[in-house]
């Protein structure tokens, strides 16, 4: 990536964030909320203490993992909306493995296996959508959405059926795993080095894969022009499946970490909508490996920071949702505008 281009993307990003702020401010003014206080609390709620910062990081990790996975599918031109379901499947598979480890003395082994299971779960779920696309011509967006619902239904069924807590089945999920099956975390921030490591590993691996390997090149070629890629000797279908496997695998890790590092059990909202949020993160990050994690961090702050808003300021609890929604809209608006500028510069291509 040329520094000049990176600089330009960063500029665009900063501009976008500025618009997001402006838009949010207007919404706040309209609803009569105290603007400065809201921002202050968001800031304090996310970066105001080490504990809060730890929470932000815990949100950042799965967001970044999903974002990295999505870079593969976006590269080949697939809209992997199913990422949400892939996170859930990763969590389900990981939970399934951990349940065997409850009585065991080899908890590390089971933790390790749970990550592999998470990868498998996410990848299988992604492959289903990929297969429907390549073999049946089913649009990956619809397949993904459908699979998201199915995954959610499976979680509910498990929680209220086979995996229910002894005695009471409730929305609060399965029984808590013993501490031995929690990912070890640092004392101060309460974040797990393994989680951090996997997020950074995902970033670096993705950057290398996309830039320096034949797979990355072929993904790009197929994504930009499948017909021409075929003439160049690249069959589109296998690469589509491969991209889905990567996306599903990374999301599966995110799902697994949600279980082993954050909630320590399976619960209905295990994916916390991070998959959908990651789609947005990647688009805002200009489909760039280095910028997307930064955007993910911003959204992680917003997410954590606005949790306590309703309580602190006696605001309606839907406000944080409204703020996120507003930033999504503002971001998409900026995106559209940016596309326009760019197409004007390059000149729409014909002849």
């Amino acid at each position, binding site marked *: 990536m040329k520094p000049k281009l990176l600089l330009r993307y960063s500029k665009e990003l900063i501009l976008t964030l500025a618009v997001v702020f402006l838009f949010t401010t207007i919404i706040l003014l309209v609803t009569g909320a105290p603007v400065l206080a809201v921002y202050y609390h968001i800031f304090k709620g996310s970066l105001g203490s080490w504990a809060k910062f730890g929470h932000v990081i815990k949100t950042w990790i799965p967001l970044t993992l999903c974002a990295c996975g999505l870079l593969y599918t976006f590269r080949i031109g697939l809209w992997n909306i199913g990422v949400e379901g892939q996170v859930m499947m990763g969590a389900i598979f990981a939970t399934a493995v951990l349940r065997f480890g409850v009585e065991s003395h080899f908890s590390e082994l089971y933790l390790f296996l749970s990550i592999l299971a998470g990868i498998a779960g996410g990848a299988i779920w992604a492959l289903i959508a990929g297969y429907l696309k390549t073999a049946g011509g089913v649009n990956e967006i619809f397949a993904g959405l459908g699979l998201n619902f199915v995954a959610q239904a499976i979680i509910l069924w498990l929680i209220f059926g086979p995996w229910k807590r002894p005695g009471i089945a409730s929305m609060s999920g399965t029984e808590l795993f013993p501490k031995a099956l929690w990912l070890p975390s640092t004392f101060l921030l309460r974040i797990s080095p393994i989680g951090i490591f996997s997020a950074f590993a995902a970033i670096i691996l993705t950057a290398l894969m996309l830039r320096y390997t034949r797979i990355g090149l072929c993904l790009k070629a197929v994504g930009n*022009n499948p*017909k*021409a890629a075929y003439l160049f000797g690249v*069959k589109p279908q296998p690469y589509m499946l491969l991209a889905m496997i990567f996306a599903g695998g990374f999301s599966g890790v995110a799902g697994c970490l949600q279980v082993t590092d954050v909630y320590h059990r399976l619960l209905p909202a295990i994916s916390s909508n991070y998959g959908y949020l990651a789609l947005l993160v990647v688009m805002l990050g200009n489909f760039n490996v280095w910028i997307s994690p930064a955007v993910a961090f911003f959204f992680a702050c917003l997410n954590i920071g606005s949790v306590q808003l309703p309580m602190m300021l006696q605001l309606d609890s839907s406000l944080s949702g409204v703020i996120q929604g507003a930033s999504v809209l503002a971001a998409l608006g900026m995106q559209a505008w940016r596309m326009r500028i760019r197409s004007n510069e390059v000149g729409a291509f*014909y*002849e």
Partner: protein
Amino acid sequence: MRVEVHDIHKHYGPVRANDGITLTIEPGRIHGILGENGAGKTTLMKILAGYTRKTSGYLCMDQVPVDYRTPTEASQLGIGMLYQDPLDFPFLSVLENFMIGQAVGLANQKKYYRKKFDSLAADFDFALRPNVQVNRLTIGERQQLEILRLLSLGIQVLILDEPTTGITNVQKDYLFSALKKMTSEGKSIILVSHKLKDVEAVCNQLTVLRRGKVTGEMKAPFDTDILLEMMFGQTPIPFNRCLQESGRTILELDNVSAPGGRSGLSDCNIRIRQGEVVGLAGLEGSGQDVFLRIAAGLLRPAGGSVMLKDKRMNAKDYHCFKHSGVFFQPSSRLEEGLISGCSVTEHFALQSDHKKFVTKWSDATSDAKKKMTEFRIIGRPDSLAESLSGGNQQRLLLSFLPRNPLLLLLENPTRGLDMESSSWVWQHLHKYCSDNTTIVFSSSDLDEIIMAADRVLVFFNGKMIKDTRTCETSSYELGLAIAGKR
């Protein structure tokens, strides 16, 4: 309307696509723009049509400075452009396409537009049926439709970028008489073309561009030698095919039928021998496109057999054909041939011989550099495919040809190339044949077929209706065959 272009610059980074162009287009005239590949013609036209923004300079219309940013604004001022690949909606009818961009409101105004369409079409002698779906039309007919649509939008200045590639001589005559009629109504026409013959036949005035600058102007009657001098700095050498003894049969189609294209292909019996150069003539989509794609394994025949060197290839795909030494190149460069968004280097990396896990970027870059010099492609290794000029895209495609192919299947290999480049390309391709490669190519230019091929096959309505040696025929005879009059 009188259009004045003053000192127009358009820079893409270090590339000066237009470097201070000044010219005047008089009302009621056909103004030709000539120039070698990459001279900046398309760029200038895109600026005039509001498709690209200029870096500096200004435009005047009837002495009034104007500034516009979009094609819509340009058409409101009366400037319209006919794109080489017409931008229509293939699944709508001719009439519906005609109405796009002008019919507003909810009322069904079909009747009104039907009338308008009929009277305009009659004015220009265009035999277009309003209810036919557009994807059943030839390129030439789609062009006619687009001209009618632009005219009914009230266009005063019509820009045509290489309108004569891909249409027949008959359609060209219709086009030219339509253009002349428009000028007699006071409209101005700007015509970009590589075909000197066409330009000389119809233009009142010419401007020659070279490397983004104006290198000469001329009023009719034109002196060809001086024009060539202005375009290239020297007169290009014409290419010619010396007759070759052809070898054994390598490709054999028996009773092959297939759907696809406009007319499909029916009962096709063709034998192609080693070392031959075979030209395919015919109206766009008369079956030659289907034939090439069957011979490449990109389309499956519905019946009959396809033999490649005694091997039955019916159910094989292109990659299998490629393995046996068959190489196909499509005519639609940006749709099928090149990958927009990928740089020249990336194109070379994609097809490098050793498909290792890790891409060797340095090798790919040096490959790209080497080929770009060899094929005289103007641009840099990191230029995106779509940023190259039309002719340079074509050269890039040709630079992908493998070293020792058995059979090259080329769709319009010199489409959009200037005269000098096409003669260079044919010299290059003929070298392949002396190494026993067979070339089968389609072209809409009969003169090119006669000059470059040993043998010509004429297609009409999905059938191969004529198979003759080029030295035994003439472009007049071929022209009749193309129109179905044997």
